[in-house]
């Protein structure tokens, strides 16, 4: 990986503040050639962890939503059942 390739990669890290990206970009040219893959590896791993976390949270929330919807459906069915029961009682 070259210095320029690392710069291109850093520009894709748009979940970071612009100021941080800008600072990183300014520092890339000062890195030794052999350190470029290390920086890339680190940033890549951190970014993967970040997106995995977000994905995990979404999955968790989706499960919660399913549980809430189930409760909601049961409550609604019960309410409908009560309406029907009352109608039968009124007959």
């Amino acid at each position, binding site marked *: 990986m070259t210095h320029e390739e690392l710069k291109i990669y850093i520009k894709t890290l*748009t*979940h*970071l*503040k*612009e*100021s*941080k990206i800008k*600072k*990183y970009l300014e*520092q*890339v040219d*000062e*890195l030794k050639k052999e*350190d470029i*893959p*290390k*920086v890339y*590896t*680190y*940033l890549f*791993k*951190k970014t993967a962890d*970040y997106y995995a*976390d*977000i994905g995990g*949270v*979404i999955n968790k*929330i*989706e499960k*919660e*939503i*399913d549980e*809430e*919807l189930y409760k*909601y459906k049961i409550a609604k069915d019960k309410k409908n059942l009560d309406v029907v029961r009352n109608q039968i009682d009124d007959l």
Partner: protein
Amino acid sequence: MLGKMLGAKIIKDQLDQNLTPEQKKILSDPNFAPDVVDKLGKDAKISLVKALTKMKKGVEWMGKLKNPRDMAIEFQQGEDKRKYDDRLDHKKSASYKEYADARGIEIEKDSPIHEIILRVKSIIAQRITGGELIEDPELAKMRDNYTEVLRNIILQRIEEEEEELPKDLNDIIEENSWGTINSDFYNKLNPQDDNNERSINFLKDDEGFTHRAEAMIAALNNPNTNEELQIDEE
């Protein structure tokens, strides 16, 4: 009251005024039979009338949706997105923006994070309503609550990420311990790569990677030549 007033006749009247021939074709579609339109809920009817009104002004995509329910949903989704975009507009105040401002988080409209948040909102809406219009206030409240929770979690995670990443790139090199997979191994993994001298650095605390690398090395070692690939530690 408005829901009761919005019968199929009123909707047809809306269509009758100054429609193009193509738009009038929609009227003759069986999907627009009075009983079909009347079955829509109050919110859907309101959205449908708004959609049809917009269509009269020459919005072409509306005419492509012949199902009144689809038209109402499409219109409502467009409205939801527009309102949401307005909330993100930096000129306007919103709890989400206040949250970001208080923590010094800069999120530009149309940024990938904005897209993630919209996608999350869409996932939640889809999950809760199956893509239907939300006419039940309880479901709408549930959707909004979960959207807010997720939005805040994402923003919080962004903030943590900012704090975790070092200020200087050099700190990344100095603050971590590294191993290197030698170039022979790299070349066996990537035979099409022209750079024969390339090697891979890996974080030594990335246990998952180390285990995978060791497994790959074991698989790649050629017993016929006694050649062994090594992970070199720096």
